[in-house]
């Protein structure tokens, strides 16, 4: 039987799905702050039950069950990852597990990770590894959602998470991220991270020039 926390997580993930699928709602929300916008339209993002009702969509039991499954399995994977040591270029149990969950749940996993990374506290080493994996995932259908999450994480309070988001964007190599990186560079206080972001920006600008020529 799921506990309150799991139910909250499930409903939260479902909200992300609904917002994603409803252009009217999503287009009215500035990419910079979904949470703030929810408060503005009278929805408390914590309980979320009311939000689902407000969306006017019915939520099928099977959808909720799938969301609960992916939520539970992702949390278990993240819990196990606490003991792992990560190295660039080297497979690990976390990324193997994420790849396996993605095969089964696809967007469901991306939504769950979006929720966890934006609204829950995750160990920054694990969060960084997830962002790097999201950046190199070869799946055009989820590119938009991954891009959104990586761009959002450029504003995270942790330098390591901001760096991982920037590296993930370099892997995606999508010029859409250019204004987000420019803004992140302007605001970045850590000199070394700023230089690393500038390297990513230079790559994306070269990609854009390449595509436009």
């Amino acid at each position: 039987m799921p506990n309150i926390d799991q139910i909250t997580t499930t409903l939260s993930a479902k909200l992300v799905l609904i917002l994603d699928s409803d252009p009217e709602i999503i287009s009215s929300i500035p990419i910079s702050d979904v949470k703030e916008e929810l408060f503005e339209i009278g929805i408390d993002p914590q309980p979320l039950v009311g939000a689902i009702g407000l969306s006017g969509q019915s939520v099928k039991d099977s959808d909720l069950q799938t969301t609960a499954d992916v939520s539970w399995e992702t949390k278990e994977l993240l819990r196990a990852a606490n003991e792992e040591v990560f190295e660039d270029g080297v497979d690990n149990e976390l990324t193997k597990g994420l790849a396996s969950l993605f095969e089964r749940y696809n967007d469901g996993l991306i939504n769950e990770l979006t929720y966890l990374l934006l609204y829950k506290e995750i160990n920054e080493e694990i969060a960084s590894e997830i962002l790097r994996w999201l950046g190199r995932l070869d799946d055009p259908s989820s590119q938009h959602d991954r891009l959104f999450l990586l761009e959002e994480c450029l504003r995270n309070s942790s330098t390591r998470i901001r760096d991982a988001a920037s590296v993930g964007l370099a892997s995606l190599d999508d010029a859409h991220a250019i204004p987000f990186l420019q803004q992140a560079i302007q605001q970045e206080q850590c000199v070394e991270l700023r230089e690393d972001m500038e390297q990513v920006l230079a790559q994306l600008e070269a990609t854009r020039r390449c595509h436009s020529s």
Partner: protein
Amino acid sequence: MPLILRKIRKAKWYKGGGVPWLAENDLQADALGDLLTKGNRLSIYLVDDEYTNLEQIVTALAANCDYISDFDFALFNEEALQNINIKLESTEGDTPDATVNSWHGDLVELTADKVIALATVIWTRAEKRRFLSKRILELVVKAVASQQIDRARLKKGLMEKIDPLIISPEAEQ
């Protein structure tokens, strides 16, 4: 005098890196995760002081991985090892590039104090650099095409990524 190259994750080594509880002159403990010893030894590569073999070493190390990724590393003068009494032993490397393997060495007889001294050297004196994954991919593809890298030694996932991108020298002509 050659430079010592050690693979790291740069973000753990940022100075004043936005960790609220960390004092300005403190290095976060996670950085030591980049200096995990085995048998009290640590693997390094020797880069000449003109950096002429740097790309070749980075390419070989990246080609030894499971997948293409960005590659972060620290470079510092070999002299720094003498200052902290760390011995360097020349040993054969384990990359798919035989030449690069000859530039491999181990830092040996390491104690916990010496690892911390080494971390301090990397943090305060090393040049820390990053090759982004896009560039790594280009370098590995080029090295495999020119047979500088032994393709047969690539891991399966990497081989599947590289193979479609390789244009043989014959095809280029």
